[in-house]
């Protein structure tokens, strides 16, 4: 990995207002708005989780999802100004290019997690060190499909439409994943269970001492990861052939 290149990639992302709004500011403010009034609820919607814990993970899922997908917005932006062509005539390999995008996404996601964990602590979330670590691990794994999806979106969508596309996609994924309120039972839950965002939110269940995801969760995440990587390869090949 080229450290200097990564540094400037990070710098660009930190200077981007959209990132701060969707990945950091918005989930943080929303957390206090939603979880604050429900601070005393210890069994939110039958999940067995306290409201501050449930929404902490829910909004962390929303913010980190956006952080990962924002790599797609950066790719789309680079494509629209022809910068991807400029990069293709440098020694930078495609692999390193994508690695820098994914690492940047993860570092941003880390910021989001840190901010929401801090906010959660303020509202009384207490977990053991082991639980914090396990939850974080699950979220980081659950974000892998979003890294791939970001690359797909970045190569298929124009910068003009990336706002609506990403906004719509994350809103839907967040809603069905149970970010805003727990979804229990019925068709909604069945749909939700097939989405990677659902399992991000479910990472909060380690707070019950329940350990990791059930097998279904691992299968869903693995399937989205494999599908996402295949789609990313296809989208990239399609894009580079066209120019």
């Amino acid at each position: 990995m080229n450290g200097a290149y990564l540094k400037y990639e990070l710098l660009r992302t930190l200077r981007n207002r959209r990132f701060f709004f969707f990945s950091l500011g918005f989930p943080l403010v929303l957390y206090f708005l939603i979880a604050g009034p429900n601070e005393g609820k210890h069994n939110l919607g039958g999940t067995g989780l306290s409201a501050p814990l449930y929404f902490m993970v829910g909004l962390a899922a929303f913010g980190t999802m956006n952080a990962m997908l924002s790599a797609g917005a950066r790719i789309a932006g680079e494509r629209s100004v022809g910068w991807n062509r400029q990069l293709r005539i440098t020694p930078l390999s495609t692999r390193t290019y994508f690695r820098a995008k994914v690492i940047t996404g993860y570092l941003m996601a880390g910021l989001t997690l840190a901010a929401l964990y801090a906010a959660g602590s303020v509202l009384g979330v207490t977990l053991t060190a082991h639980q914090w670590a396990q939850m974080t691990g699950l979220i980081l794994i659950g974000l892998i499909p979003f890294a791939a999806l970001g690359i797909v979106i970045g190569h298929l969508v124009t910068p003009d439409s990336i706002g609506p596309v990403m906004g719509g996609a994350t809103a839907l994924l967040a809603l069905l994943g149970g970010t805003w309120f727990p979804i229990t039972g019925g068709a909604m839950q069945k749909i939700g269970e097939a989405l990677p965002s659902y399992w991000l939110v479910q990472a909060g269940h380690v707070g019950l001492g329940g350990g990791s995801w059930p097998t279904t969760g691992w299968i869903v995440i693995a399937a989205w990861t494999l599908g996402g990587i295949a789609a990313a390869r296809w989208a990239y090949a399609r894009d580079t052939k066209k120019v």
Partner: protein
Amino acid sequence: MSLTPTDQGHDWQSAQVAETLGIELAGLVKSFGAVRAVRGIDVSVAAGETVALLGPNGAGKSTTIDMLLGLLDPDAGTVSVFGTPPRAAIDRGAVGAMLQSGALLRDLTVRELVSMMSSLYPHPLGVAEVLELTGISEIADRRTQKLSGGQTQRVRFAVALVSNPDLLILDEPTVAMDVEARRDFWVTMREFASRGKTVLFATHYLEEADAYADRVVLMANGSVVADGPPTEIKAMVGTRTIRATLPDAPLEALERLQGVSLVERRGESVVLSCTDSDAAIRALLAAFDEVKDIEISGAGLEQAFLQLTSGDEVAP
């Protein structure tokens, strides 16, 4: 140009030995669907040469450059850059290019952007040096999205130079530059070329090709139609026409006038295509007292190309 390798402070050849083999494009063909953009061209450029790829829009210049840079795979033919495929030359930092159009990466300052690109190369020039050279030191701390068109082009030039390439490719680089910026640009380019660098630039301005290239490769309809020193190409395409009212003069007599290559009658008027319009106008006035309504105009490059390529197959 009177630049010599010793009269400048820039150390172009630091940390590397200049390449010796040149650029070879052999039998290149590229089609996009039914459009045959490049129809089998052969061009070789010696190391250290500055060559202009001259042609009207749609001649296949950019497609050729994309293949030279490995951005496009040719349908047929081979590309060799200093003896290796383009990708290998790019990987060792031997190639710098200013592609046609395109903006800059946003949310960085000019200095940061040039530093970012510099970090990708094995033996880059110093960032401060490149900023100085391309005349953008004073805007180095400005965000890239806040630059004028001409400033953007200069930054793109800096990005092309920062790798300290042995081969510099410029695809219509002076688009969006004003007259002064153009002149500055070419001065820098010449200075760079004078260090033994190989330069290939595409342009549709005959004047640029004439003034700044050692050699001109003329392209039209995806083929090379001429290849030679600028003076030769200029004589071929830099024709002027004299149009005058001269109802009774015999065409054969007009054709014999000095500097005239082709004569056409259009009603009362005659149109003389000239290789040397100065000589032709003197001869015309001396030979025909009755000539009037004289107009001299430069034939556009497009028109010159039509003449050059008429008779060749032009079907797609």
